[in-house]
């Protein structure tokens, strides 16, 4: 009458649809919570999920219920000192009394408690990057690129032995064998019949010359049939591969930061957050993302991440040194044909007087043509300097692929980031 079933191998996540429905329904609430948390927590924490709370009032499922008031009788266990007729002061918490008997009490509570749940990392990042898009991702992908990958493209008669298609080759061989043997077999059968007819005749009437002739003919035909090869070279068929250009799905991100004396650690932290946000974003869009860190004061240098963010330098600022270095690195290692190139630059806006013009020239003539996107964030509460003006010129020239914003304090990063990568209606 009873049987056991092991359901453990069955699909989990039967509730996945309902979970998604819930997230969708309270999208606005969750998004607000996610945005607050992004501003609040350190960017290095981005990799984990987030606890989100929504006022339970907003998501309650209403039903008809008794409200407070009126006359109620409540039976509770554990009487210690009460005697019949005792009068007690009403607890200040309202009409609740000494614990209400039924579960209704919680429903009647003031709507202050929060409904708390945890978003998974994926869900969290979906909300973080919701509504953002990489500018001009499509353009790069449509362009015919040098990188190719082999694709099967039918059958060919030439090829290397490793690609031999056995089934097709054997089929060809069989067809050829049938085709070549047929006339020979027919002639053979006729010769054999003629010989048999000859031999059935009375010995007196036999023609020995004819018999010899037939015999040698049969021998010749049998030899020819036997000589037909089982597999001939022109039976062989090979799988044909052609090379198809492949859209590049890899990106490299250049982090360029000014580390001159005027940049404090606080500036760098803000810059770091911005870079990490961009990195996470790119990571979600590309299979592979490489990072190149370029720091500069008067001279630029490619460094590792640790040194990039934490070592201290002093001195003046020449921005063009960094841009030149980036250009050279692209030349040497990251062909624009194969890589989607992104540059993110953080600076406090200082630059050597004449250098901004050089930057302008460098960007306009060389760099911008290769890049997918150039973002510049200026971390300063002060007025803009020459560099900002130079970049503004570039922005006018390449409105689609160049973006710049100003950040004053850490809280601005996320809004600025959203602004930079806002999904354009039509791009």
């Amino acid at each position, binding site marked *: *009458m*009873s*049987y*056991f*079933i*092991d*359901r*453990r191998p069955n699909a*989990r*996540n*039967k*509730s996945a*649809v*309902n*979970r*998604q*429905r*819930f997230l*969708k*329904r309270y999208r606005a609430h969750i998004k607000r919570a996610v945005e607050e948390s992004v501003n609040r927590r350190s960017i290095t924490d981005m990799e984990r999920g987030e606890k989100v709370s929504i006022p339970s009032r907003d*998501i*309650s*499922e*209403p*039903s*008809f*219920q*008794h409200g*407070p*008031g*009126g*006359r*109620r*009788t*409540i*039976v*509770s*266990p*554990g*009487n*210690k000192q009460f005697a*019949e*007729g*005792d*009068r*007690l*002061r*009403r607890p200040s918490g309202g*009409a609740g*009394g000494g*614990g*209400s*008997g*039924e579960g209704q*009490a919680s*429903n009647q509570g003031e709507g202050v408690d929060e*409904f*708390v*749940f*945890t978003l998974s990392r994926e869900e969290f990042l979906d909300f973080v990057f919701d509504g953002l898009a990489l500018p001009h991702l499509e353009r790069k992908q449509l362009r015919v690129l040098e990188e190719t990958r082999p694709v099967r493209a039918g059958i060919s008669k030439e090829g290397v032995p490793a690609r031999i298609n056995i089934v097709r080759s054997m089929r060809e061989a069989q067809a050829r064998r049938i085709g070549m043997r047929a006339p020979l077999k027919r002639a053979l059968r006729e010769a054999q019949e003629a010989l048999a007819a000859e031999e059935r005749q009375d010995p007196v009437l036999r023609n020995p010359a004819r018999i010899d002739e037939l015999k040698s003919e049969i021998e010749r035909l049998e030899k020819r049939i036997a000589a037909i090869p089982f597999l001939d070279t022109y039976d062989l068929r090979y799988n044909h591969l052609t090379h198809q250009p492949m859209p590049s799905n890899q990106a490299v991100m250049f982090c360029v930061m000014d580390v001159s004396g005027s940049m404090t650690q606080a500036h760098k932290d803000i810059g770091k957050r911005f870079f990490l946000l961009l990195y996470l974003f790119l990571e979600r869009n590309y299979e592979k993302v490489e990072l190149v860190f370029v720091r500069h004061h008067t001279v630029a240098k490619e460094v590792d991440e640790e040194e990039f963010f934490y070592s201290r330098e002093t001195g003046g600022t020449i921005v063009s040194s960094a841009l030149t270095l980036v250009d050279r690195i692209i030349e040497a290692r990251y062909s624009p044909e194969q890589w989607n190139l992104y540059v993110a630059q953080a600076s406090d806006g200082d630059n050597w007087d004449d250098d901004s013009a050089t930057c302008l020239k460098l960007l306009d003539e060389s760099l911008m043509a290769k890049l997918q996107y150039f973002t510049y964030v200026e971390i300063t509460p002060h007025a803009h300097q020459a560099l900002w003006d130079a970049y503004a010129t570039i922005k006018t020239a390449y409105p689609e692929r160049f973006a710049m914003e100003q950040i004053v304090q850490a809280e601005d990063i996320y809004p600025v980031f959203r602004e930079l990568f806002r999904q354009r209606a039509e791009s």
Partner: protein
Amino acid sequence: MTPRKPIATGSDWNFETLERYEQAIAELAREYRLDTYPNQIEIITSEQMMDAYASVGMPVGYHHWSFGKQFLSVEQAYRRGQMGLAYELVINSDPCIAYLMEENSLMMQVLVIAHACYGHNSFFKGNYLFQTWTDASAIVDYLVFARKYVAQCEERHGVEAVEQLLDACHALQNYGVDRYKRPSPISAEAEARRQEEREAYLQTQVNTLWSTIPERAAPLADHLLPDSENDPLGLHRHGRYPSEPQENLLYFLEKNAPLLEPWQREIVRIVRKLAQYFYPQRQTQVMNEGWATFWHYTLMNRLYDDGLIDEGIMLEFLQSHTSVVSQPDYDSPYFGGINPYALGFAMFSDIQRICQAPTDEDREWFPEIAGSDWLDTLHFAMHNFKDESFIQQFLSPKVIRDLKLFSLVDDDRDDSLQIEAIHDDRGYRRIREALSVQYALSAREPNIQVWEADIRGDRSLTLRHVQDRRRPLGQSLFPVLRHLHQLWGFPVKLESIENGDTVRRYQWPIPETGRESA
């Protein structure tokens, strides 16, 4: 009987030992005349248990965000260790589906088999409410039908439209039950076959209702009619529609809401049918858990007496059982109302005691069961009662004393609370009465019925709330009225009546002039 060798020891289990324990328990259950549906025992992981939880005990459910919310909160509580998952989940179906979590120890698995597969299962099969209100053999098929139908509607009419409709129906689902009339059994096959015919039929019915003037209903008592001065032509003398108040709001809406599309009526019907399926469970919590706990306790002890489980398992069991039936005092930080396991177990054990070793007090209080055959009496109690009547009938002075129950009156016209009764001779009956009322659904949920659909006038729908002891409706009433308005399509009014006087009126949409409340 010579003690037998334990079937297994330690805490690890495998399918073979589970099967042997199941057989041993089945044998004992037969001895105790526990009549059950066949058992389908499913071993699942804790994640699957969370899924099962989230669908409020339906093995297959239609999709709705509220189940997702349920899932998220279960998951959150479980992850943070605030809550252990229930060790078992059992579904009132034929065969009776019980879930066992793979993480459970051997003792837990045996306990759950005894508790769910023989305790709850026999209750589902035997109790009159379940026999009357649910059809265990059809429920799984019906759920599958409901899920498919809702999914089809989502495809045809959009997820959002269906979701809003379900929201509205869920808000009223406690009022989707015929409390007195026996419902017709549900069958998925017939349901699917009839569904198309019904769509057409329902629509014609509704059309008839709204397009012609209904036949003259039984004349109303004079005082209910508008005076002839206001209605000289007697236009309103056709009587009220419906002529009797209707307690099943969802049923009334399904049949009468003027603007609902056929598919919308069908969804209202689905929610109503499922509410009906859960209706007995809401009324037999104490009995159901008490019965199952009583039997797991009895069966485990028998297994031990027969030597089929060793001391180790028995000690582990007693520890677990004790925490299940513990009842924190009202002033304890762990107090969360009366524990249905504790009360139910205490009552069933007490009935057994009254039968086997009655005292003079028992003979006075329970003359007809004191000293009778305990098994007969227990089965009788299980078959024929619900929480409300079970407590009224069987709560003994001893249980009241053991639990030290007291009743307290909270009256908003009195600035202090009053102890009405305690566990003494003068208090027993009053406590029993009060506790019984506390478990009556009619006292837990406001009594609200359809009073009038103004089919000749502005098409408004009027509900009547019969107010009891001045207990008003809670704030959630406005969102519910809003949902009701979505279903009805015309203004919805609600009147609270106490002792024949209308004490409060509500309306949705709220009239322009501001909230109308007397």
